[in-house]
């Protein structure tokens, strides 16, 4: 039992240590930076093709290509949250107002002595009223036969760090609620097609997908700037009643507490594949999306619809080229031909033109259909995340912009000559309070020793 207690003490001691927390931050930062520099979520062949061999091996072996979902990354965030929790309970919550106790004023770096003349009770009253008038909370204590005055300001702001930590916890609760009760996904809808989203029970019918590009003349040439992507839909919720909706980027639609977002778009291509002049059995009959492929009959070869080209241009050399205008003015498709796993080549084929693949095989892109990629997400944690973000910011502002400070005041002397000794401590050291302390001392000096009133001299008549 004693060993367990000792272990617990060591654990809480380590995890509540700020330097340990900052060390965890450093590791977290390093892993995050690796994720920024190393391309994430690509196919292993991408790293082999684009990185130096040794680096590619390192990336793949250490899981650096998916670092944000790696054990190391999740683990370090777990350690940081643990540290935050331990620190909150061990350091932040117990950090109450320091007890009212006598101090050696001269030993505190921010200290001063103000000489005052007058009756003791009057001097004490003037000092007390000076601090009260300036918004300080004043308390008095008799300690060791000496009367001490303690003035505190912004003490509640000592809780700023706690508020910020609570903000993190609320955000974490909100995101956990999403993992627990929420769901998300993506669906592709071709123009004229209806899809159902099983998890939300919604149905989406894409009437039309529209896009707008504007050719803009810039210093470096014409830029085809995308201006608008819009899905004109008929949607139905669980009640099955369809209604017209317009979906745009930045303007999601809400169906039964699930939000639908305009994600991206593309052009599906319908390809006519023949063998010796007859349609090839097993070839796709419907439109293909970019990246889709199929096997070419009995051969080892396969064809992939790599990408849609809006505007095919004729190069001065006579070859076909890909124009900058993405709008389908003179459309075509890029087909990639594989022999087993080996790429034989890519060919740009205009719409309606036939590509001879040899051995009696031909392929003809016949038509294209715009499609819309729609993202959906049901997230019951949104209000909690919003509240958490607000609380976090409030905590940061309290911690950074308010300075909890205490003044220790001791009045000593005899007769009508008194020394008011003042010292100040803050939660952020002494330097940050230096100018304010000088102001306080200056103000106190002037207030408790008011300048003598000038004599009322009668006008001299000559």
């Amino acid at each position: 039992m004693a060993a367990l207690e000792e272990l617990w003490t060591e654990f809480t001691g380590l995890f509540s240590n700020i330097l340990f927390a900052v060390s965890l931050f450093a590791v977290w930062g390093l892993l995050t930076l690796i994720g920024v520099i190393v391309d994430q979520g690509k196919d292993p062949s991408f790293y082999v093709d684009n990185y130096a061999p040794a680096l590619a091996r390192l990336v793949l072996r250490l899981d650096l290509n998916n670092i944000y979902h790696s054990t190391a990354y999740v683990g370090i965030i777990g350690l940081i949250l643990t540290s935050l929790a331990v620190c909150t309970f061990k350091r932040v919550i117990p950090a109450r107002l320091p007890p009212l106790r006598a101090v050696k004023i001269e030993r505190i770096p921010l200290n001063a002595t103000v000489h005052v003349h007058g009756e003791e009770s009057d001097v004490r009253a003037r000092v007390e009223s000076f601090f009260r008038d300036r918004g300080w909370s004043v308390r008095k204590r008799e300690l060791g036969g000496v009367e001490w005055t303690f003035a505190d300001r912004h003490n509640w702001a000592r809780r700023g760090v706690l508020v910020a930590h609570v903000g993190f916890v609320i955000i974490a609760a909100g995101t956990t609620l999403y993992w627990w009760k929420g769901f998300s996904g993506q669906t592709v809808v071709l123009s004229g097609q209806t899809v159902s989203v099983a998890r939300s029970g919604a149905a989406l019918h894409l009437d039309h997908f529209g896009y707008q590009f504007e050719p803009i003349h810039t210093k470096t040439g014409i830029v085809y700037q995308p201006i608008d992507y819009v899905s004109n839909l008929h949607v139905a919720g669980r009640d099955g009643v369809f209604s017209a909706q317009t979906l745009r980027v930045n303007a999601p639609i809400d169906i039964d507490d699930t939000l639908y977002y305009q994600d991206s778009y593309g052009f599906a291509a319908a390809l006519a594949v023949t063998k010796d002049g007859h349609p090839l059995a097993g070839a796709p009959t419907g439109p293909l999306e970019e990246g889709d492929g199929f096997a070419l009959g009995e051969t080892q070869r396969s064809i992939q619809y790599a990408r849609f080209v809006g505007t095919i241009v004729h190069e001065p050399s006579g070859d076909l080229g890909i124009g900058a205008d993405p709008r389908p003015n003179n459309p075509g498709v890029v087909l990639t031909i594989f022999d087993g796993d080996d790429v034989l080549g890519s060919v740009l084929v205009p719409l309606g033109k036939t590509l001879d693949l040899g051995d009696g095989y031909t392929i003809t892109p016949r038509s294209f259909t715009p499609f819309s990629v729609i993202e959906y997400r049901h997230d019951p944690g949104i209000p909690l995340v919003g509240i958490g973000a607000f609380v976090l910011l409030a905590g940061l502002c309290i911690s950074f912009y308010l300075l909890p400070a205490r003044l220790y005041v001791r009045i000593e002397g005899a007769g009508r000559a008194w020394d008011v000794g003042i010292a100040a401590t803050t939660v952020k050291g002494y330097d940050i309070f230096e100018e304010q302390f000088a102001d306080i001392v200056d103000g106190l000096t002037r207030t408790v020793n008011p300048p003598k009133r000038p004599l009322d001299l009668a006008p001299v008549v000559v």
Partner: protein
Amino acid sequence: MNTDQSFIVVAISAYIMSTLAFLIYLLSRERWAKLVGIPFAILGCVVQFVELGYRYETSHIWPLTNLYGSLSLFSAMSVAIFIAFAFKYDFWFIGGFVEALAAGFLAYGLTWDEGYLPAVPALQSYWIKIHVPLVVSSYAAFLVAFATALLFLIKYYGERWLARSGTVRSLRAAAATGPSLSSVTVATAALGDQPVVRGYRESEIIEAAAARGDRFALWLATLPSLAKLDIMTYRIIAIGLPLITVGIITGAWWAKEAWGAYWQWDPKETAALFSWIVYASYMHLHTRNAWRGVRCAWLSAFGFLTIIFCYLGVNIWISGLHSYKM
């Protein structure tokens, strides 16, 4: 040259003039230099904001949808934050650094100016008027903090060099038998908390070397104390960190509205997170006596490098959801 370009020429010229004036002020403490630098700094800043407003008024396109626009706001905000801090704390020493960086970033931004381009669909949101100014303002605050940290490091290593010279030791010994080098007045405050450089307190080094007539020491003596420079850096980062936090939160909220997820692990998001981690570490370490001062100054300087990487490096070299160069 059109009206737009004329504004930029005026702004860059004003920044160059104010850079020179503030550098003279930093080196000589001539008051006239400060009085020349201030109006030029204000002029450049005002002209830049007018230029951004003019751009918006004439094109009806929000000017912060491309790298030129955001760099322009970045330099204007850097100068604005510097002016605000300098007026509040009489802190014009760093003007030369801030104005030079502002002029440099504005000139660099011009190389990305492709004229008036309408916003792409992802940027057509009211969030662009909230998120981008917040994030750019946080970058600007970190630039000013970088300038104060730079001045701290110059002073710190200058004093180290003086302490190494050995003259201090002999003067200190002489002072022990003669009159005191410093007269302690009411609230000399941080004397007990003063940074210690190679075993000597800051004031001892400066006073001893200055008494010797060392010109470098005399110049160092005109600068604010290391403790003040450290506090100033802290104060500015205390502006920048909440701003970047709000910037990340508003960005996450915008992403939620545009793409359905708060966080996409986009390079820009994660680079901003990295910078946030660095400055959050700074704030944690600044609570420790042992870390205040030179270590925190280096961390502030490093933090600004991460900001530049996040701002320009990711926008220009790494493709992602935030690749809005033009």
